[in-house]
């Protein structure tokens, strides 16, 4: 069935391409890409990875078992696509009910710095009855901050029924290695508005007149820290009242962070473009205007202006960027090469 579905999609895509029905190609390929990328995003969000840099050399894991305050606990440093946290298992066979006071968890970092994650809305006290086994999460500070940690001591106060005094469970983790991109989130979406002046043009497109401005939208999705895929739509106008060129592409994205806020993007893509006429002063009235296959790339430098954080998790960031876009159309009125400057306003989440 899976192969049949892929076959039908591919057949539809091929027929559309052969008929040069580029609108259908974009719709079918876009649907296909959206389904695959959304499925992969769901899959990524389900996957929890152990933080390799904190693996104990003897066991090859970060797991710490503790038998304190009459209960058994297991601590595990985990990261998903966007945040790091402690996954904690609690097994209570003490004969009493215990309450883990997660709001008062104390982190001691690198020996002397103290942080409390208790303000987070994600943290609640956990009541564990006798005989129960539960899993809980304690959120860690954001990835970029956590990447600077070498040593982490965790203290969790617990209360037991019948006792006024709290008891504190203590465990410690020590960094054993450092890996690249520990501070970078993946499974990350970007939405951008681009605009800028047209610079140069060659080929048939010269006959259309001099373009003066580019504007468009760009969507990227990063499936790893440095690699992603995306779509971009762009209009280039005004060809002295002859209309504008519309371009749409599917592209690969290579992203490299030069500093935590400053990144370089390279977006090579393939797509199609067509001339959109100005019907008040048309260029070739009553004649068909052909669409053409196009290749393009964008070279952009992005800078993060600020982030919106909630409970130690980055919800959204806002960035600006600047760079160039270069397109090449293979036939028709838009055959030839065009280069433009782009300025970017974007948000990532």
């Amino acid at each position: 069935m899976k192969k049949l579905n892929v076959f039908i999609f591919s057949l539809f895509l091929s027929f559309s391409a052969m008929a040069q029905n580029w609108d259908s190609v974009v719709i079918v390929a876009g649907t296909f890409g959206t389904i695959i990328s959304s499925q992969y995003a769901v899959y990524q969000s389900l996957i929890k990875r152990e933080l390799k840099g904190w693996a104990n050399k003897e066991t090859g894991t970060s797991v710490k078992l503790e038998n304190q305050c009459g209960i058994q606990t297991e601590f595990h440093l985990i990261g998903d696509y966007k945040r790091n946290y402690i996954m904690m298992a609690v097994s209570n066979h003490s004969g009493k009910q215990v309450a883990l006071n997660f709001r008062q968890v104390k982190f001691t970092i690198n020996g002397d710095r103290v942080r409390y994650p208790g303000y987070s809305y994600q943290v609640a006290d956990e009541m564990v009855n006798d005989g129960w086994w539960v899993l809980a999460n304690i959120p860690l500070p954001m990835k970029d901050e956590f990447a600077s940690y070498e040593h982490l001591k965790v203290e969790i106060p617990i209360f037991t029924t019948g006792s006024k005094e709290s008891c504190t469970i203590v465990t410690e983790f020590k960094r054993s290695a450092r890996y690249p991109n520990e501070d970078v989130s993946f499974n990350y979406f970007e939405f951008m508005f681009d605009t800028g002046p047209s610079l140069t043009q060659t080929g048939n497109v010269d006959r259309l007149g001099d373009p003066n401005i580019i504007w468009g939208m760009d969507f990227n999705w990063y499936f790893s820290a440095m690699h992603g895929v995306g779509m971009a739509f762009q209009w280039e106008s005004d060809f002295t009242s002859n209309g504008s060129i519309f371009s749409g592409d599917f592209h690969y994205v290579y992203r490299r962070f030069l500093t935590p806020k400053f990144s370089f993007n390279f977006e090579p893509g393939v797509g199609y473009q067509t001339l959109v006429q100005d019907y008040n002063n048309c260029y070739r009235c009553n004649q068909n205007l052909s669409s053409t296959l196009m290749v393009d790339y964008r070279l952009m430098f992005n800078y993060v202006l600020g982030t919106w954080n909630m409970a130690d998790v980055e919800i959204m960031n806002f960035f600006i960027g600047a760079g160039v876009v270069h397109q090449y159309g293979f036939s028709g009125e838009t055959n030839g090469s065009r280069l433009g400057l782009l300025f970017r306003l974007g948000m990532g989440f």
Partner: protein
Amino acid sequence: MKLLCLLLIASCSSYFPPIRGQYTLSTLKHFMISNMYVNPSNLLKENGQILIQYDVIVKNIDQKPHKINLKDSSIRFNEKKFPMNCSRFLQKDQQFDLKNEEQTRIVCLGKVEKIQGSKSDYRSIIEIPLDQDIAKFDYLLRAEDFE
């Protein structure tokens, strides 16, 4: 088109790996045991046999050290007992002393025979001897594993 999209989503979702065991954290007489490292997709088939890898974390919570001998580790499946080759993660030894408050990781490898033509899931039990205790873990073999 909508039907095609739904079909594709449904078919993609079957790629998610099956759950073979539940996380457990439990206490024996002298040890704490956990199976946090059950890798659900780590299952290979070879010449009519299914290869299983199972990871366990063990901590000695007794006041004194204990001698561990992993040679009699096994997996019970379909009313048969198959041997498992268990050893410490780093040292690769099967016999060692576990000191008070010390923890270690045990990696077990085993083979079970495929049941030809089976359409059922099977529950197997992994047994690891820990001095006077035996650590037991459930492990689910899916009907698809026998295909």
